[in-house]
């Protein structure tokens, strides 16, 4: 996102924060608009419209399945339906308005979205009748979302499907092997949808009306890069009447500007001296390699946590407190604590829906504890890696951390049972400092897999860092 876009976000957020009534609808209108506005260009131009439309379609469909009959009543939901329909229509009408700076002007013809709308509404009406009877629909949606995510994250599958489309059209596919197909925000939207489906199945999801649900899934400050809130928490914030004190304004402003500074000044400057493929090939000094690696570690932190600050600040002026995503992760004395403070909302999600159920299940079987810890850590961290993209690099990054967490867990256990009394403060301080140093370096080495384009280059970088092959 650009500074100008975030500036506009801030203005819109401030205006929404002034509303005493209809705040939920205003957030909804802004979020639906932003969903279309930020969608990047695509291989096929029409997808710039249809992808965000599909996001809304999927969100509304999922809401139908996870809502109660009482929360589905027309009287409650018609304003939200109207707002969504009007915003989508206005965006489509840009073919007549011709506002190129706001959105593309080659939006689908009116008859096309009219037909799409009628087909979709018929589908929803059928689904509403069936939803309460056919419980498997929920599981089907859950699995469908996972499949879609895997597809979107796998460049090979995208290439193959585009080649197929060109072949079906009888056209020659373009020479470039990389097709442009990106579903903006889907990685995060997936987790919100899956969380609501699972919690509905276990009876833990509160009743949400359409506006609340769509707002939760595509809330504009957080839909592209998190944090991943929990529905019950988010809705509670939304339902509380807004009452911003001076202190709230001050804190929101501080978070917003701090985030902008971290992202656009610090992170963007560090990007110039952060490790990349070219540097790995050209640098012949281990010391400089460490320097460039550390710069990358700092850059990714300032970039990501900076964006989180911006999102938290924007949400705050609209009366919504988003959860924190970072808590000084590089100052943690071990890897477990690092992962408790880095991209916290993502790790909490994985803990709740993968790690804990898997551990619970394995604990009821006769499986040795170290094996359970190994399996759950490797599995969770590999999936967190693959969530960033289905590639060897992300998988290796995940395994790197999974193995690291396992070794740290076993070591802590080994030390703990042998520690009878607390250490003297000085020794504890030294131990903590050593732990912070070790953890930071372990995490930094892991970033090599994360940022460099192939495992071979990552391994070359790693060997150069230790003075081999310079």
């Amino acid at each position, binding site marked *: 996102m650009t500074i100008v876009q975030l500036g506009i976000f801030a203005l819109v957020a401030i205006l929404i924060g002034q509303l005493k009534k209809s705040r939920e609808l205003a957030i909804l209108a802004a979020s639906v608009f932003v969903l279309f506005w930020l969608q990047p260009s695509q291989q096929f131009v029409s997808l710039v419209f249809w992808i965000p439309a599909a996001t809304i379609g999927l969100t509304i469909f999922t809401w139908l399945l996870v809502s109660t009959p009482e929360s589905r009543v027309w009287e409650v939901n018609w304003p939200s339906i109207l707002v969504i329909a009007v915003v989508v229509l206005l965006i489509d009408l840009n073919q007549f308005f011709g506002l190129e700076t706001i959105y593309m002007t080659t939006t689908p013809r009116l008859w096309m979205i009219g037909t799409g709308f009628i087909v979709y509404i018929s589908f929803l009406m059928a689904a509403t009748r069936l939803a309460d009877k056919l419980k498997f629909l929920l599981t089907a949606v859950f699995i469908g979302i996972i499949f879609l995510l895997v597809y979107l994250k796998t460049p090979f599958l995208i290439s193959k499907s585009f080649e197929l489309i060109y072949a079906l059209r009888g056209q020659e596919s373009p020479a470039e092997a990389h097709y442009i197909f990106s579903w903006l925000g889907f990685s995060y939207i997936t987790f919100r949808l899956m969380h609501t489906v699972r919690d509905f199945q276990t009876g*833990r999801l509160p009743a949400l009306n359409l506006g609340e649900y769509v707002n939760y899934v595509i809330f504009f400050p957080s839909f592209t890069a998190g944090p991943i809130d929990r529905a019950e928490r988010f809705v509670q914030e939304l339902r509380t009447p807004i009452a911003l004190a001076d202190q709230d304004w001050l804190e929101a402003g501080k978070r917003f500007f701090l985030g902008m500074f971290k992202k656009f000044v610090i992170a963007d400057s560090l990007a110039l001296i952060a490790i990349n493929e070219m540097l790995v090939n050209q640098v012949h000094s281990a010391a400089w390699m460490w320097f460039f690696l550390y710069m990358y570690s700092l850059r990714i932190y300032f970039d990501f946590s900076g964006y989180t600050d911006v999102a938290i600040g924007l949400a705050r002026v609209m009366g919504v407190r988003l959860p924190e995503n970072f808590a000084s992760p590089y100052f943690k004395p071990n890897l477990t604590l690092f992962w408790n403070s880095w991209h916290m909302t993502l790790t909490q999600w994985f803990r709740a829906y993968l790690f804990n159920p898997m551990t619970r299940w394995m604990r009821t079987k006769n499986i040795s504890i170290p094996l359970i810890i190994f399996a759950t850590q490797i599995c969770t961290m590999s999936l967190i890696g693959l969530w960033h993209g289905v590639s060897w690099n992300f998988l290796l990054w995940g395994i790197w951390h999974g193995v690291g967490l396992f070794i740290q867990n076993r070591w802590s256990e080994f030390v703990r049972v042998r520690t009878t009394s607390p250490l003297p403060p000085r020794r504890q301080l030294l131990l903590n400092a050593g732990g912070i140093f070790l953890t930071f370096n372990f995490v930094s080495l892991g970033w090599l897999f994360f940022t460099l384009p192939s495992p071979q280059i990552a391994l070359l970088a790693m060997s150069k860092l230790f003075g081999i092959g310079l």
Partner: protein
Amino acid sequence: MSVEITSTLAKHIAEKIIKQPSRVITPDEPIISSGLIDSFSLMDLALYVEDTFGVRIDDTELNATSFDSLDQLASLIQSRKA
């Protein structure tokens, strides 16, 4: 009642989870955010609570936001029992 629960929990954590029987865990001490109990041991604690007090703690509740001290865990248990 709450004191009974917290002392039972404190004893169990010290003896069985962190395996330092002499370690005193105060009722208001953070046990998750401090790293005293890792995510694996947290599941063990949940299973113990379920067996001992007969209340279910959901997988989604095993985090520092739901409870971070024995006092908070005891209130959660009591609210479920009620």
